[in-house]
């Protein structure tokens, strides 16, 4: 089991090294070094863009948290979890080409790059960069929490912090070797393994559905990794809407979009993405199989691995564990590549291309170390921060849509909109809930849009230009 796991990790490192060769070739053709590092110089076609994009969608929370949630609480959260991932594809299909176009117009590598250039506002750049950093930090911690579960089962006798440190070093190696190119190429290996693991374990669960042990249902404890949102149908539907549009505004997704060679590559990838969701029924079957056959698990998030251990030989379980860990490492590397330029391009501007890369590696090392240390924190705090992620990350959407359509939208309107949404969420927290059981993020987004529209009507910008229709 350990040998096959280590073999896959070594193979992933070899792939990252191989990706480095292509990066040097790209630089030799005169590409901007920092853009080559952070967004692969805009060289990826539909295939690599697809693997990057689905790598972001199918994280360790999907492989462990989704079946864990079903095992513990049934299908109550499946509507919003599946619904938002499904609808994120069409949202990216239509918004992605415009994000690409906006980045192309201003030579952007990050969301704040675009807002600074389009609205000519340093304050907007700093607000969006700082907000994105705060919101991204818990995502790194969640990946380490998932990996902690797997690594502790793989090598129970080893100190967990040392194993997480090794995972952090591997992530740093991917990023330092070839930037986003390493993430894209390793994502191919990760997706082949992940899809293979889920198809294999799911097919075996179906084959053994009525086998020995069927009917010994066990009660399950509460899940700890996301998905963990509660609420009724209004909350589920409003969460689907919020997160589907919010998905397009995630900083690392902008980096992926900027890495695409042309807008049609983004659209081609989104046509295929929904078919990839065949994994979700199989993950549910695995969770129900564990309940039906009384397979005991130490915690719900371990249910997929527990079923794999019950049905597969040890060396194949090692491959499955490698797939889970790689899915965490891929998210980590993309978050690293999203956070680093927020510091080196946006919070500390004026660094040259080489300095940006050098300082980025330092920022990434600190981010990984802090994320590992944060795994010692209480999980409910981290889950809460994850729920806040989409609320915060989506608040740049009114400003972006305005930049597409409205020439007169002023920077102060976008700032005021984000500020109003922030005040609203603080009020919701203090009041103990949003009206009507609706996700407060969606109400905050509506307030944001109204404030932006009002500011545009009252203080229109002189000399601005909308992106749609611009020659």
């Amino acid at each position, binding site marked *: 089991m350990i040998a096959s796991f280590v073999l896959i990790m070594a193979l992933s490192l070899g792939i990252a090294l191989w990706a480095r060769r292509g990066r040097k070739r790209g630089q030799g053709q005169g590409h901007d070094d920092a853009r080559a590092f952070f967004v692969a110089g805009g060289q990826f076609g539909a295939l690599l863009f697809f693997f990057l994009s689905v790598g972001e969608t199918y994280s360790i929370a999907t492989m462990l948290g989704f079946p864990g949630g079903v095992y513990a609480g049934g299908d109550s959260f499946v509507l919003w979890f*599946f619904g938002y991932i499904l609808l994120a594809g069409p949202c990216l299909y239509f918004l992605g080409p415009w994000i690409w176009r906006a980045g192309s117009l201003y030579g952007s590598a990050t969301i704040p790059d675009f807002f600074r250039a389009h609205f000519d506002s340093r304050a907007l750049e700093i607000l969006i960069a700082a907000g994105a950093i705060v919101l991204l930090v818990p995502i790194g911690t969640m990946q380490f929490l998932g990996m902690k579960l797997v690594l502790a089962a793989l090598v129970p006798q080893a100190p967990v912090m040392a194993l997480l440190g090794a995972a952090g070093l591997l992530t740093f190696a991917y990023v330092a070797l070839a930037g986003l190119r390493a993430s894209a190429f390793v994502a191919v290996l990760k997706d082949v393994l992940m899809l293979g693991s889920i198809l294999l374990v799911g097919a075996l669960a179906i084959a053994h559905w009525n086998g020995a042990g069927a009917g010994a249902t066990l009660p399950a404890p509460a899940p700890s990794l996301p998905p963990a949102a509660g609420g009724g149908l209004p909350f589920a539907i409003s969460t689907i809407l919020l997160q589907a549009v919010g998905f397009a505004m995630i900083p690392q997704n902008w980096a992926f979009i900027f890495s695409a*060679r042309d807008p*049609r590559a983004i659209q081609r990838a989104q046509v295929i993405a929904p078919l990839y969701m065949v994994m979700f029924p199989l993950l549910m079957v695995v969770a*129900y199989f564990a309940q039906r056959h009384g397979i005991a698990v130490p915690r719900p998030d371990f249910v997929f691995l527990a079923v794999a251990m019950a049905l597969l030989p040890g060396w194949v379980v090692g491959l499955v564990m490698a797939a889970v860990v790689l899915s965490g490492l891929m998210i980590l590397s993309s978050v690293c590549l999203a956070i680093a330029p927020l510091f080196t391009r946006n919070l500390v501007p004026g660094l040259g291309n080489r300095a940006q890369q050098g300082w980025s590696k330092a920022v990434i090392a600190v981010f990984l170390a802090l994320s590992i240390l944060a795994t010692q924190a209480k999980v409910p705090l981290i889950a809460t921060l994850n729920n806040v992620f989409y609320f915060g990350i989506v608040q740049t959407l009114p400003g972006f849509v305005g930049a597409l359509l409205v020439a007169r939208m002023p920077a102060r309107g976008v700032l005021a909109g984000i500020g109003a949404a922030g005040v609203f969420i603080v009020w919701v927290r203090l009041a103990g809930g949003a009206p009507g059981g609706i996700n407060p993020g969606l109400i905050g987004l509506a307030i944001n849009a109204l404030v932006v529209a009002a500011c545009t009507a009252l203080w229109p910008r002189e000399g601005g230009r909308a992106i749609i229709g611009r020659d």
Partner: protein
Amino acid sequence: MTHRHRQRGATTAAPPRWAIALGLLLPLALVLLSALAVPADAGRWLGIDLRIWCLFACAPVTSVCLALCYRFTAGSPEEDDRPAEDDRA
């Protein structure tokens, strides 16, 4: 800030309304229908509620809708002819 000159498939017009209806609104309507219109006690298969199976069925339908949008909306007249990274790999 370096400005790349506008090129490489940069579109300048919004997508047609029929494409937004087919590629975005129809999948949204299907997801809502599967949540609201299918009875909760309609039966189960492999442990999964029929309502959830209907939700899962929205995925291939969405893929077909987006494929139709892709097929029948014009590609950019300025699309780049450079080989992509995955073409070279």
